[in-house]
């Protein structure tokens, strides 16, 4: 279905190509995983296949891509839209309409499918991706997993036989991810759709995939079998050490209501020095709400606290990486240097002149974490600190958090990554529907 021959891609202002003479082939009905370290070009590879790179990103492409025997290199996305479906990292931001059924039909409208046939296909595709009972539902009232499935349906509604997905499960909790992956498996088996997925959290996918393409970070690509991948995934995390702890921060009962719905039932937190506390739970379970409530409480009590919000790029407000780093703390130069060191440790050296908005999601997160950690506050709050990080960066982050704990900091993190929560933390508070799970 897809053949890439010596495919190269270089961003306009980059020193080295992101993809360097890559060769691979994907057959009909194959389920292929593209993996690699943060910023290694996984998203870029998918974008190059559908033409978003260079047409939406700038840069130069060379080599040859053949889709179903047709040479498509350098064509804009809308010229290959009838052959390839593409779902980006945040489907909610990519919806062009209001309701599920209109969204499913959107691509078909653009491709000029006849109205009667459209009706039929909307029904079929909705059944296939499991949203048949949600057709009239406004898109913003869907769960993350449902949104992802609608996006998949819309990408395939015109009968496309290739589906590209950029980190389809990284923002999803386990239940949502399971639903999405089941749909993908069904598509490869019953519809012979070739699926190419880029993803960090390979453990969820390991059993489903046929083949792995790994980008090594230097622009080269190596093929692996799923088994090899799992072996390379095993990495140790530091075991919690028990040191003399004292209570640093104690909250009264925190509670949050929006109108008549309760986002958070009364819950209190106690954070000690030398400790990492994790809030785990599914999307919408109240983790973030609790974190923000705790933050306001910490401000109220005049504690020094640093926080990395879920949307890490919100913290980045200046024009270059180096400006962000030197603004880390204006009066205190060592802080900037410390931030630079932490950043390099997490994701390697970044070009100091690049615009923070042009970094990959994982790199933005790493930068935000570096900026906030370097302030050396007593309390450190992190909301979903692993999103978009590859396993290596994740384990480095775990090490880093371990060191901070040993230095005496109290760390509170919210994550739906249960493994990360278990492996890093001294205490895991599991939340279900705004309540502590052990209280139910």
């Amino acid at each position, binding site marked *: 279905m897809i053949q890439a021959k010596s495919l190269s891609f270089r961003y306009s202002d980059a020193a080295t190509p992101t993809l360097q003479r890559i060769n691979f082939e994907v057959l009909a009905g194959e389920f292929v995983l593209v993996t690699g370290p943060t910023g290694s070009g996984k998203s870029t590879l998918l974008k190059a296949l*559908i033409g*978003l790179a260079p*047409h*939406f990103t700038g840069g130069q492409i060379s080599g040859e891509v053949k889709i179903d025997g047709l040479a498509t290199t350098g064509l*804009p*996305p*809308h*010229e290959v*839209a*009838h052959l*390839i*479906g*593409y779902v*980006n990292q*945040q489907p909610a*931001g*990519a*919806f*062009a309409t*209001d*309701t599920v*059924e*209109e969204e499913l*039909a*959107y*691509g*078909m*409208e*653009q*491709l*000029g*499918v*006849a*109205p009667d046939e*459209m*009706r039929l296909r*909307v029904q079929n595709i909705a059944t296939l991706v499991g949203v048949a009972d949600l057709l009239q539902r406004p898109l913003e009232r869907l769960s993350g997993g449902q949104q992802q499935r609608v996006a998949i349906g*819309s*990408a395939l509604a*015109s009968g496309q036989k290739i589906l590209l997905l950029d980190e389809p499960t990284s923002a999803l909790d386990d239940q949502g991810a399971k639903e999405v992956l089941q749909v993908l498996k069904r598509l490869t088996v019953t519809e012979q759709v070739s699926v190419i997925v880029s993803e960090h959290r390979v453990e969820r996918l390991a059993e489903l995939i046929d083949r792995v393409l790994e980008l090594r970070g230097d622009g080269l690509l190596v093929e692996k079998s799923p088994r090899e991948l799992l072996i390379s995934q095993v990495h140790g995390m530091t075991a919690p050490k028990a040191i003399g702890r004292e209570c640093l921060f104690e909250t009264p009962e925190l509670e949050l209501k929006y109108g008549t719905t309760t986002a958070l039932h009364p819950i209190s937190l106690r954070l000690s020095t030398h400790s990492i506390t994790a809030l785990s739970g599914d999307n919408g379970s109240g983790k973030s709400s609790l974190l923000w409530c705790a933050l306001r409480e910490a*401000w109220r009590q005049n504690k*020094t606290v*640093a*926080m*990395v*919000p879920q*949307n890490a*790029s*919100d*913290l*980045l*407000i200046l024009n270059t990486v180096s400006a962000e780093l030197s*603004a880390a703390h204006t009066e205190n130069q060592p802080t900037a240097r410390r931030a630079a060191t932490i950043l390099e440790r997490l994701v390697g050296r970044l070009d100091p002149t690049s615009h923070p*908005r042009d970094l990959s999601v994982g790199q933005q997160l790493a930068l935000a974490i570096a*900026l*906030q950690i370097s302030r050396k506050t007593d309390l450190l709050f992190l909301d979903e600190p692993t999103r978009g990080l590859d396993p290596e960066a994740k384990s480095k982050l775990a090490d880093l958090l371990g060191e901070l704990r040993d230095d005496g900091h109290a760390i509170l993190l919210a994550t739906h990554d249960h493994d990360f929560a278990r492996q890093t933390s001294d205490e895991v508070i599991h939340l279900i529907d705004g309540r502590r799970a052990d209280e139910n």
Partner: protein
Amino acid sequence: MNLTFKASQIAPGAWWLLGLSFAICAGISSSAPTLLAIQILAVLIVLLAREDAPWSRSLLFYICTAALVVLIRVTFRIIFNFDSPDQVALNLPAIRIAFGPLGEIDLLGRVSQSSITAALRDGLRMSAIILSIGMANSLANPRRLLKSTPAALYGVTSSFVIALNLAPQLIASAKRIRLSSQLRNESNRPSKGVMLISPIIEDSIDRSMALAASMDARGFGRRGNLTKLQIRFSRVASLVSISALAIGSYLLLTSDEVWATFASFTLGVAGIYASLRVTGSSTLKTRYITHSWQIKDSLLVGVSALLAILFALGVIR
């Protein structure tokens, strides 16, 4: 046959036709009771047919605007009055203000009965037009309406739809970024407005680019380009239309040539229609119909047309 006339069950185009025909009737009529009846009817229809949607919540705004227009029109007529001795309804002291090089201006004085009723009638006509259009806007889903605009405007209306989709997200992201700016400094104070403009716009540019990418990846922009001939035709048609409309307006205001006036206006509208058709013909996209035209839509359109015709012929005044 299902004959419930709820806002979302009628095509938005039908609501607009009803609103426009009400407005036309109001424009023609010069009887205060009829104008009042049109207003009451418009408000009643909104109250009966509306559902809980953001665009249905502005009824009060329209009623207030309508009332204000009547009030302003009448007060205006009383304050900026020409002193007149006939049928005096209000006898106020006349004031004359010299206004430098612009001349003089008369205020108050003896206000005649007829000038007040005329002002009241004109005010009622304006407010009836406002309420008629307000009715259409309160009942028709704007997105669905934008969806049914002609193919020749597809690009422009798409950007309007993008704007409607992005507006609520913008408010959310502005709030988020303001909150996040508190996290970067020791004092935990949010940054000042101007500091935030750039990150908010950068954030929303990224969002709009992601949306554009997803639209393009699903085939948006896949229209055959217009040929030179088509573009040239559309431009000529536009220029002819504007000239015809200008001639039509001139004739309307200066002569009694009913047929020539009518012909000019018809030519003008036809030219724009032709331009719409020709520049819209090259898109190969189709439309997914969420609402199929039903008997009740036709019924509503029929009633609207009948009303407008009865007013135009002078059967109802």
